[in-house]
């Protein structure tokens, strides 16, 4: 399969801090690529750098064979990259309907069909259509954030810690949704919950102290207790 996204030797500074110090990462079309690492390793910053929210100081981000390193965030999003931030980024005072409406670029029949598909994937959103986003439960907010990123026919979805703070039963639902979405798009996932990551991930990239330390097939990592112990503290 072809590389949809490729990061080469990315360095990112936030203020005076040198957060990313050499990230190399690839996401192949149709796969779920998981970024793994301890807290503060640089996973979230990697996603933000791809989105142009914390632009790279050096290195290159290529998406669909074009350099998007210096592009503004809205341009990157319009190239078909959907982003689900760690805190979901729901517009709390807007209703579920309005949250989706902000995201929809053009109300074409295809996009409205996609919205219907997304609402079938997350029936709770239909149920709470007129409810303010801020009044949804944690799981519903996560579903709304994913729906919003997915609704524009995104070719690539960046999802940051979708299981964070959710009950196990809700995590299962979110996982099922990601597996379903994978049929239509490519996913880059940041996840602390290794069980979830290993269940749905095809490939992994381990990040430590802002650097890529290893990448490969998920099945390989599952069997490598030493690597899991060293970089994830499990195994």
């Amino acid at each position, binding site marked *: 399969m072809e590389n949809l996204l490729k990061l080469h030797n990315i360095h990112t500074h936030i203020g005076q801090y040198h957060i990313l110090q050499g990230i190399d990462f690839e996401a192949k079309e149709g796969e779920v690529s998981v970024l793994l690492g301890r807290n503060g390793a640089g996973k979230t910053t990697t996603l933000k750098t791809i989105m142009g929210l914390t632009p790279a100081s050096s290195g290159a981000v290529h998406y669909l064979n074009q350099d998007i390193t210096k592009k*503004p965030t*809205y341009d990157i999003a319009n190239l078909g990259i959907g982003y689900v*931030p760690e805190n979901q*980024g729901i517009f709390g005072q*807007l209703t579920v309907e*309005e949250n989706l*409406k902000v995201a929809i670029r053009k109300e074409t029949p295809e996009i409205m069909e996609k919205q219907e598909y997304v609402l079938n994937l997350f029936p709770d959103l239909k149920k709470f259509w007129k409810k303010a986003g*801020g009044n949804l439960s944690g799981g519903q907010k996560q579903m709304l954030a994913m729906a919003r990123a997915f609704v524009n026919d995104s070719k690539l979805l960046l999802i940051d810690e979708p299981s964070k703070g959710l009950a196990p039963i809700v995590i299962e639902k979110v996982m099922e949704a990601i597996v379903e979405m994978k049929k239509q798009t490519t996913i880059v996932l940041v996840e602390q919950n290794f069980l979830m990551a290993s269940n749905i991930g095809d490939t992994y990239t381990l990040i430590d102290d802002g650097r890529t330390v290893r990448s490969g097939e998920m099945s390989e990592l599952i069997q490598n207790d030493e690597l899991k112990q060293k970089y994830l503290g499990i195994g």
Partner: protein
Amino acid sequence: MDLLISLVINGLATGMLIFLLAAGLTLIFGLMDVLNFAHGGLFVWGAYTGVVTYAYTESFLIGIVVSILTGIILGFIMEKLIITPVYGNHVQQILITLGFMLVLQEMIKVAFGPNAIPVTVPSYLAGSWEIGEVIVIKYRVFIIVVGFIIFGIFHYILTRTKIGLIVRAGVINKEMVQALGINIKRVFLFVFMTGASLAALGGMLMAPYSGSIYAEMGMEFAILGFIVVVIGGMGSFSGSLLAAILVGLAGSFMAYYVPYLSLAVNMILMAIVLIFRPQGLFSMIRREST
């Protein structure tokens, strides 16, 4: 009873003028996180260009149109030259916009002279109605009606249109709005120009109400605008209307019953709101970082 009605009409009319100034300020602060101390300059430029046009053409309506256009043009220039370089830095924003306020004020004196210019109410809005014992001044009712119409139009835009939805979303989390593919800088410019045009319109409507215009009136009204934004809640359009009416009514009643406290009443109102509800009565802002 007739006194009560007169005071209410006075208060509402003053409140509406403050609202026109505060509406732009609150959106500019809420969405762009910009403290614009030059907003009063737009108010006074709107007043002067509108009044001069009104004097030449003898058409109050053309004066209003010219004042709005002045606001739009000055808003565009300000956003591009003054505001864009200082996004994200409040100290620089305060310094540069205060400086620009002074420039706008002094340029008024250069262009139109240092003396106050008398303004009369257009004939069709002059005079008053007598309703029973109550005398209702037509121009004040006109200001109140225009204020409510402007509120209605903008309330519709903010709640029923896509651009309004984007502005409201941007007030809450502008980083996320960009991540959804929207060029927030373009939205910033639109909001800034809209806010500037409202301030300029406020200045033009104020002119016949106060009977004369002078260069310093922008600064005086801008302070009231800021008080209203703080009371109403940063970023809240409806909050600004209610707070402006509150400030207008409080000013009107206090000026009659306790005149020596009339200047302090706005500050007291603001202090009370800040103590019990520091985010303002209807704050839209729940900033989240993504």
